[in-house]
């Protein structure tokens, strides 16, 4: 039996999930006080076919470390899944939710079309910080939280690689 903790809404909500294997491909999963009978068949390309209490679901899981986007037929559920050990480490490191300084990075190679904030400026969650041009379209990179701009590294007109840090919000 293993227990996992799922973080939802970027860490604002937390759910515990217990998994017990009862036979090859057959599991009991305890969640929100309910126990679900689960038949799971994994396709070699990453889709998981689930029969949960008789209902059939296809789940596509895109893992990035502990983060996973679960795509169902009509919805995408982004979450983070940790085992107890990882959870403890997280809590220790304190970077558990959006608390603490957040770095804004270039999501892909592209061009800095415009920098909309200055260091020291107060920003609101969702406020545009940088106009980033990629694949022929301009995209606004927004603040993940209310806070203050503590550094601005992006320079207008410059071309950057993916993951380049553009600014930091504290």
């Amino acid at each position, binding site marked *: 039996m293993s227990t996992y903790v799922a973080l939802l809404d970027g860490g604002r909500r937390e759910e515990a999930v217990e998994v017990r294997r009862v036979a090859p491909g057959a599991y009991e999963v305890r969640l929100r006080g309910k126990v679900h009978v689960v038949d799971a068949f994994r396709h070699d390309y990453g889709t998981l076919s689930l029969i949960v209490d008789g209902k059939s679901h296809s789940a596509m899981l895109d893992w990035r470390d502990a983060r996973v986007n679960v795509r169902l037929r009509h919805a995408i559920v982004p979450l983070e899944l940790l085992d107890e050990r990882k959870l403890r480490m997280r809590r220790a490191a304190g970077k558990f939710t959006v608390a603490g300084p957040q770095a804004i990075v270039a999501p892909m190679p592209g061009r800095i079309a415009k920098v909309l904030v200055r260091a020291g400026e107060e920003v609101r969650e969702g406020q545009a910080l940088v106009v980033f041009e*990629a694949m022929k379209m301009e995209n606004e990179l927004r603040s993940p939280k209310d806070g203050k701009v503590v550094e601005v590294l992006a320079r207008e007109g410059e071309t950057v690689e993916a993951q380049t840090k553009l600014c930091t919000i504290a």
Partner: protein
Amino acid sequence: MSTKRAIRKILVANRGEIAVRVMRTCREMGIATVAIYSDADRGSLHVRYADEAIHVGPSPARDSYLDVGRVLDAARRTRADAVHPGYGFLSEKAEFARAVERAGMVFVGPRPESMDAMGVKTTARANMRAAGVPIVPGSEGPIADETAARAFADAIGYPVMIKAAAGGGGKGMKRCDRAEDLSALWQSARRESAGAFGDDRLYVEKFLDRPRHVEIQVFADERGETIHLGERECSVQRRQQKVIEESPSAIVDDALRAAMGEVAVRAARAVSYRGAGTVEFLVDASRSFWFLEMNTRLQVEHPVTEALTGLDLVRLQIDVARGAPVPRQEEIVRRGHAIEARVYAEDPARGFLPSPGKITYLRVPAGPGVRDDSGVYGGWIVPQHYDPMISKLSAWAPTRDQAIARLVRALGEYTVHGITANIAWLIAALQHPAFRAGDYDTGFCARYERELLPRPDPEQEEIALVAAAVAAFKRDREEAEAFAARAVASPRASAWVRLGRARALRGEDR
């Protein structure tokens, strides 16, 4: 069918989805095809699909697909006798059409003069006014600078649209609702316009109240016979980019269709048009319509019209280029309802941020009444250099309700791993009450922005949690298994192999 000009080999001056689309028809017609490709596209589907392929330069479009000299040289070297431009890239550059014809090859498209007459928006508006086609109030020519723009905007009143004079496809196009936003939007439009067309001239026009984007597909042969194939409604747009297109339009009845068709044909005749073209109109709440622009090429959303009429518009383009006549207007029979949704490699939850990268697995929808036009495949790396559209998914059915249900069903089947796509967003849009009711306009995406990013309901969330937890459990268990296997086995590799074999023999991977 009269064919004054022989066309045996066509160079398709484009890439991705539309290049494949054109080559499919060429193959059905027994015409050889030549693909061009940039560094980033050696592995692209259109390269494999063609009978011949020739490299035209580095990945950035301006050094390859937009380079008239290189593309023309490719056509010469491969002895193509015709060039099909697709859409975008050089398709609306009269200079390219001229160069192709000077080189003694057939340009599968309109005469360069027609492209001139429609190419620059301000010229087009003047020509249309002269032809008695109703047009939206706006600046007569490009506007000198931001100050002049502000003055003009104040004069005609907000909201206004800022548009690239050389533009198309939403690039360099901005809606400005308030005077205080003008400065930022004006500059952004200039940057986009310069980047996309190497031309930063902008003009301003009145933004209409709840306008719907309705366009008429026209077709003309070289003798000037001109017909229309009815309308497509393309009001579901985000950032001025069409996302969902359908026909018939919910607000167009036979009378309005006839009226708009007649005007569209007149517009085409006014510039002695030849081949496939689309006259775009804005239709307001009172169902009066204004000329917006004419796209002098095949439209992305042409499959919608093909589904209704049963015609292959690329085949018709080639027939016309060979000198054949268009069908008579009364031969055109429209049947049922069709809707197209554009599948983009982008993340609606992050402001539609493009999501290039490797498609690790792809299974596209199929079954009755579904058509997929795609330029990608499982294993392909979507390059960051070009448009992020990976597929056009369209559905036909006898009625609009059935067509919507069919397209939703099909989108639910769409399986792509490795990149983020806008599939859930498209489903939400198609299921939105306003769309279902046919009561929507070009403000649809902005107005319902939040509703179109549905939060998963509790049941979906539970399934997702179960899926993630079970997957993690399997992973952890297998890591343990593998570790144990490695511990006992040598050489190292074989343990993995045996483990894999064992699974394969169980006919499963549990």
